[in-house]
């Protein structure tokens, strides 16, 4: 049983890696559309057939260490395309957005705490990196600091978020996202609307903005960022998986599904909502810091309400609460508009229509989260 699980996981990872590679490399519009159709067909087939259920439950029950297949696939793609700057940049962007979505999943997917200000916390991480970068602090520390500052500023919102719920809580995060952006724009100490230059990350004195050169092997500097993002993503992914499968995850489920019932059974609802919100913002902040370092530049217009929506689209399109769905959905949301450049001014319209259609006809996402095992048994 264990062995089949592992084989299945490997197969899924291999297919995923292959599709990702094809979508990333495809230059031709038809190739892109073909790959997308193949992915859509795959997702529909998986949903219709029993094999989809089996797969979902295999991934759900598998040990968190199966997540190590992600860096494996990522490294394979990364090294296979080590000279393609743009492709690697997209890959790194996908991973960074994916990382932010791990944070959102902990908040919204696990504990049901809604956050429409994802881009704002992403931005807080980025601005932290910009400010600390000037002081020559080690990059990894800066990334962690980005997460901590995002988590700390998120704490200001905790009181109103705890007191409200549902649409009222949604408004609070929307308002925060909007005010964060206009604050950055009118406040000149943080670069104002023109934004800030950000120091690139460096590891052991070696700047990640320099390409890798090992003998005859020459790689784009974006490979560095792919590896960095891949590393942080995998760590957070595994931690989040362990969180989900532990008793903390059970508490989150209880708080999300039935807060009143949970409190009757002695679950401290407020405590778990705070935990999810803070941990989630920390992860989003990490992502923002890496993003700022990779782009070398940040400006308030990177962190608008619609950017928050893009992040939320990823977790909803993928399947709320399913960590495994984040990467395919992030590829779809981040890469597709870029690949659709050929249709120029129509691409936002096309994107909006696609999201609407998916939400309408696959409301639980392309890869719905599998239920916890004990719950399935109760249902049957």
């Amino acid at each position: 049983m264990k062995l089949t699980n592992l084989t299945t996981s490997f197969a899924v990872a291999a297919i995923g890696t292959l599709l990702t590679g094809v979508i990333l490399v495809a230059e031709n519009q038809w190739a892109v559309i073909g790959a997308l159709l193949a992915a859509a067909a795959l997702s529909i087939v998986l949903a219709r057939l029993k094999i989809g259920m089996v797969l979902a439950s295999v991934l759900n029950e598998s040990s968190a260490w199966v997540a190590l297949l992600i860096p494996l696939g990522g490294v394979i793609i990364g090294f296979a395309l080590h000279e393609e700057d743009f492709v690697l940049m997209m890959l790194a962007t996908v991973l960074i957005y994916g990382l932010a979505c791990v944070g959102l999943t902990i908040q919204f997917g696990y504990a049901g705490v809604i956050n429409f200000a994802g881009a704002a916390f992403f931005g807080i991480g980025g601005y932290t990196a910009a400010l600390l970068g000037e002081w020559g602090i080690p990059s990894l520390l800066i990334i962690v600091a980005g997460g901590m500052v995002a988590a700390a500023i998120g704490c200001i919102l905790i009181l109103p978020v705890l007191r409200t719920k549902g649409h009222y809580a949604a408004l609070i995060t929307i308002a925060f996202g909007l005010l964060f952006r206009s604050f950055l724009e009118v406040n000149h100490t943080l670069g104002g609307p023109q934004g800030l230059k950000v120091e690139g990350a460096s590891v052991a004195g070696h700047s990640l903005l320099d390409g890798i050169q090992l003998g005859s092997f020459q790689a784009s500097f974006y490979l560095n960022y792919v590896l960095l993002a891949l590393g942080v993503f995998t760590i957070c992914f595994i931690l989040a998986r362990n969180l989900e499968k532990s008793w903390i995850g059970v508490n989150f489920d209880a708080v999300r599904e039935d807060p009143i019932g949970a409190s009757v059974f002695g679950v401290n609802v407020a405590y778990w909502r705070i935990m999810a919100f803070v941990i989630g913002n920390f992860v989003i902040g990490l992502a923002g810091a890496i993003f700022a370092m990779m782009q070398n530049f940040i400006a308030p217009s990177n962190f608008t309400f619609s950017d928050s929506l893009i992040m939320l689209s990823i977790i909803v399109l993928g399947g709320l609460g399913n960590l495994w769905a984040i990467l395919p959905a992030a590829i779809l949301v981040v890469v597709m508009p870029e690949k659709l450049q050929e249709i120029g001014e129509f691409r936002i319209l096309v994107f909006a229509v696609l999201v609407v259609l998916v939400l309408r006809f696959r409301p639980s996402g392309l890869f719905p989260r599998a239920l916890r095992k004990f719950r399935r048994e109760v249902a049957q």
Partner: protein
Amino acid sequence: MFIRAMIAAAVMFGGVATASAQTKETVKIAFIGPMSGGNSAAGIGGRNSAELAVRLRNADPASKYNYQLVPMDDECKPNVGIQVATRVSTDRSIVAGVTHYCSAVAIATVDVYHRFRLPVVVWGAILPAITYGNEHKEIHRVNGSMLDEVRASTSFLTGLGYKKWVIVHDTTDYGNGFLRFFKERIAETNAEIVSSFGVSADQQDFSAELLKIKGIQPQIVVFAGLTPLGVRIRSQMERLGVDIQYAGVSGIMSASYVEALGATAEGTVSVHNGAPAESLPGGRMFVEQYGKAGFTDPAEPYGPYAFVAASLIMDAVEEVGPDREKVRDVLNATKDHESVAGPITFDDHRHHAVASTKYVAQDGHWVRWEDSLYASGQRHLKGQ
């Protein structure tokens, strides 16, 4: 790649390169501008103009290459801009780029172009720092800078006797930049800025700001921002009875400003880098050809500069072939190069300074100040 190699081989072994388009090597040029969102009118006008330059060149039997424009949308967002800039920079088949309308995006992307050695010519962004803020040889600009406009505008308006200014600016880098340079410039004159108001780029209602201005009673309201906001502020001044002269910057100078305001636009003064296209010999050609090409959207004021930028790049490619470094060097050395916007000369920061032209809205059109009924004294601005 394969096809290109085949063509190259055919050309080499065929011995004679015929003039027919099929045997010409294709050279790709990128165009980047905002083609969706609030600034898309300018972006689409720019893309059409650059496309026009490419079509005209391809129709010219004397050209050595067949050109292809690769248009990209930066959504006027720095992160998207960096993404598409990386995309075109790392695409080795692209030789050069006609890039950016929004200053924030242009500033964010200069390092990308430098890193990947892609020569670009900015066609619309006017913040000085784009060319003066770095030493990158890849970055050129044909459309002048904000400083040119501020200089022209300040002397024009103070010359008309407007000494007590209020500035309303949008809180993007564009409006803020203008505010800064106006402040510096006004300090050197006997005029003063009595108050300034920052407004966000998507704000709809300005009654609070305008009523405050009504209380201050300045001689002139100078707006630094783009058309949509400029239109809203002007029409709300009318509604609230703020009967004060209104002036703008190049950002409001579009056909839709006068269309959207109708009679209310009358008497708005503004400045714009470069003379009106119609008044130049090449400009007349541009307007004619643009009309003939059958584009559904207007060229917008910065269209001619996108045309110029694309032409400059193609001239350089004709001269040295599709090689990024060579094209960059040719562009760097541009001096008195004829174009529809007059002769282009790059300074040591690869910036082409332009003499801004003064305009006034008259009978539903932007008219050069010197040619207007206002300059001849038949009509009067407010407070004159």
